[in-house]
C-alpha cells in the first residue's frame, strides 16, 4: 500500500525578490513498511522535500497524498493535526526541550494529541523503556550523551505510533559508535513494520535503507550515482 505518493511536486521560495525553485516536479511513491534514504548534496531540495512529506510545509504545486489522503491543499492549521498523528520527526540536533526531563519530552506529542495525564505518562515510560532509557526518566537532556539524546528523540517520534518516521541526518551529530546504535534502532523499527524515511548525505548510512532516492536540483535523479 502506498503510504506516500507525490505527483509533480513543486516548491518555490522567494529569496528577496528572486523566485527560487526548490522542487521541480517530484514524482515519488513510498510503500508502507519501506525503509527509504533520501540523498543529495546540500541545496538539492532534499530538506524541502522532507518538510513537505512531514507536513511542516505545503507545496506550491502538484499533489501529495499521505496515507491515501490528499494533504497538499490542506490549510496549515489542519497540517498540525496530521503531524501529530501521522508523522514522527527525528532531527540531526535532537531538538529536545532542555528544561523538561526526558519523560516530559516524550510526553509532549501525546499532550498535544489530547491524551490524559496518567495515560501518556505510562505510554512515554513504555516507549523510553523500548529504547533502553527507563533508568533515566527524570534526567534532563543535557545530562545525557548524544546517543542517548537521539534515543529520546526517537522515543518522542514514535510515541504517537505515527504512520511514518522521518529522520533528518539522525547520525550527523554522533560519533560512529552512537550513530551505529541509532541506525540499529531504526532498523529494528523498520523490522517491526514501521515506515522509515531518512535524509542523509552519508552513503554508509544510506546503505542501511531498502532503497535510496537521489535528489538533484529539485528532481529525482535516476542516473548513475558514481557519475
Amino acid at each position, binding site marked *: 500500500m502506498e503510504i506516500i505518493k507525490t505527483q509533480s511536486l513543486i516548491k518555490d521560495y522567494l529569496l528577496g525578490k528572486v523566485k527560487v525553485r526548490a522542487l521541480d516536479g517530484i514524482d515519488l511513491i513510498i510503500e508502507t513498511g519501506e525503509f527509504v534514504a533520501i540523498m543529495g548534496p546540500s541545496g538539492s531540495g532534499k530538506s524541502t522535500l522532507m518538510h513537505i512529506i512531514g507536513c511542516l510545509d505545503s507545496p506550491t504545486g502538484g499533489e501529495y497524498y499521505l496515507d491515501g489522503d490528499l494533504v497538499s491543499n490542506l490549510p496549515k492549521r489542519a497540517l*498540525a493535526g496530521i*503531524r501529530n498523528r501521522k508523522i514522527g520527526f527525528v532531527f540531526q540536533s535532537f*531538538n529536545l*526541550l532542555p528544561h523538561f526531563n526526558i519523560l516530559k519530552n516524550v510526553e509532549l*506529542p501525546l499532550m*498535544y494529541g*489530547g491524551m490524559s495525564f496518567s495515560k501518556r505518562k505510562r505510554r512515554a515510560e513504555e516507549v523510553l523503556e523500548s529504547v533502553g532509557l527507563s533508568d533515566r526518566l527524570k534526567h534532563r537532556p543535557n545530562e545525557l550523551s548524544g546517543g542517548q539524546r537521539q534515543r529520546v528523540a526517537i522515543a518522542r517520534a514514535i510515541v504517537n505510533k505515527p504512520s511514518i518516521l522521518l529522520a533528518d541526518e539522525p547520525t550527523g551529530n554522533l560519533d560512529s559508535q552512537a550513530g551505529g546504535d541509532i541506525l540499529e534502532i531504526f532498523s529494528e523499527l523498520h523490522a517491526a513494520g514501521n515506515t522509515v524515511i531518512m535524509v542523509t548525505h552519508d552513503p554508509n548510512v544510506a546503505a542501511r535503507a531498502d532503497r535510496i532516492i537521489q535528489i538533484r536540483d529539485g528532481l529525482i535523479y535516476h542516473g548513475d550515482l558514481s557519475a
Partner: protein
Amino acid sequence: MAISVLESLRVGLTDIAMRKVRSIVTILGIVLGVMCIMVVLAILAGMNKSTMSWMGERGGLSKVEIGFNWQYDFKKGGEAKLNLAELRTIKSLIPEARAFNPNISSWDARLRYRDKEYSAQCFGVYPDMQIVDNWFPDKGRFISDIDLRESSNVIVLGSSVAKEIFGNHNPLGKKVFLKNQVMEVIGVLSEKYWEQHGGGGMWGRNALEYMNQRSFIPLSTMMTKISPGSKVDQLEILAYSPEEALALQKKLRPIMLHIKDGKEVFRVSSAQEDMLEMQKNAQIFSAIFIMIAAISLLVGGIVIMNIMLASIKERTREIGVRLAIGARRWDIFMQFMVQTVLITSLGGVFGLVFGYLILDMVGKYLQMPMTANSNMIFSALGVSVGIGLIFGIAPAARAGNLDPVVALREE
C-alpha cells in the same frame, strides 16, 4: 482537540519556575500598580467611613464653629473673644439657627469632693450644647435656661470625671468644690466613644475620651463666679441641615468681621465644608494614585510584552519543535497567553500582599481605618489578569504565527 487551558497552565508554570528572576523583574510594574489601586480603594473607603462617623459623633455635618483664627496676625490688634452683648447681636441675626452654644473653657478648674481632687477641663456653656454636640445626660439633667439666667451653682460631669470622683456611687445631688464655689452635681453625660484605628493615641483606643474628662457649668456662672471677667472664645451653632450650615457659615463670616471691626480674629468653619474639603483632598489623592497605578500598569504591561517577545524570540526553535511534534497554532498561542496572564496575576498577588502591608502603615499614619476588602482583591486580580490579556495577545500571536520550517532553522 486543542490542549486544555489546564495544560497551558502547567506549561506556563514550568516556564515561570524556570525563569524566576526574569518573572519577578517582569512583574514589578504590576505589583506597584496593584498596590496603588489598593491604597486608593482603601483610602476612599476609609475616608468615607471615618469622616462620616467622626463627624456624626462630633455633632454632625450641620455644625458651624466660630473660634480662634490661627492664621490671623494678632499683632494687628483685636481679640478673639466675645462678650455677652456681641453674642446677643449674633444670635439675633441668625434666627434660622437650630441651636446656639457659646462656651468658655477653663483649664485650671480643680474639682474637689471630700478628699478627692480632679483636674477636669471645665466648660461654661448654654443648654443648647446638648443639641449641638448631640450629647445628652445618662443620669440626671443638663443645664437649663433657668440655670443660665440665675447663674446657678450647678455642674454636669463627663462620664470619666464622675467615675473618677464618685466611683460606683450616685453623684447626683452631691456637692463638689469648683475653685471656691460649691456646685451641685445635677447630671452625668453619656460616654462618648469612637474607636481609634491604628491603635492608641493619648487616650488609648477611645479617640473621644478627652470629652468624657470634661465638666460643664452654665456660661453665666463661669463668667461671673468661676472665672470672672472671662469672655467667650468659642461659639458653636447648629443648623437644620448641612446645606443650611453652609449658608449659615457664609452669612456669619461678614457678621463676625463686622463685629470685630473688620479684623479676621475668628475663623468661621463648618463640618460640612471641612468634609467637602476632605473629600476633595481624598479625590485628588486618589486621582494621583490612580495616575501612578495607570502608569505603572501601562509600563508594566509594555515591559511584560517586550519580555515575552524577547522570550519568544529566544525560544523560536522550541516553538518550531513543538509545532513539528503536533502543537497547533492555538496551543502555542495559549501557552504564551496563559504564561503572560500567570505572570501578571502573580504580580497582582504580590501587589495585594505588599499593598496590604502598606495599608497598615498608611492607616497608622493617617489614623484611619484601612482594611482590605474583597472588592480590592477582585479589582486587583481583575486588573492584573486584564493587563496580561491585553499585553499578552501580541507576543502570543507572534509565537502562534511562526512558520515551523523557519522556526526549526533558528539557532
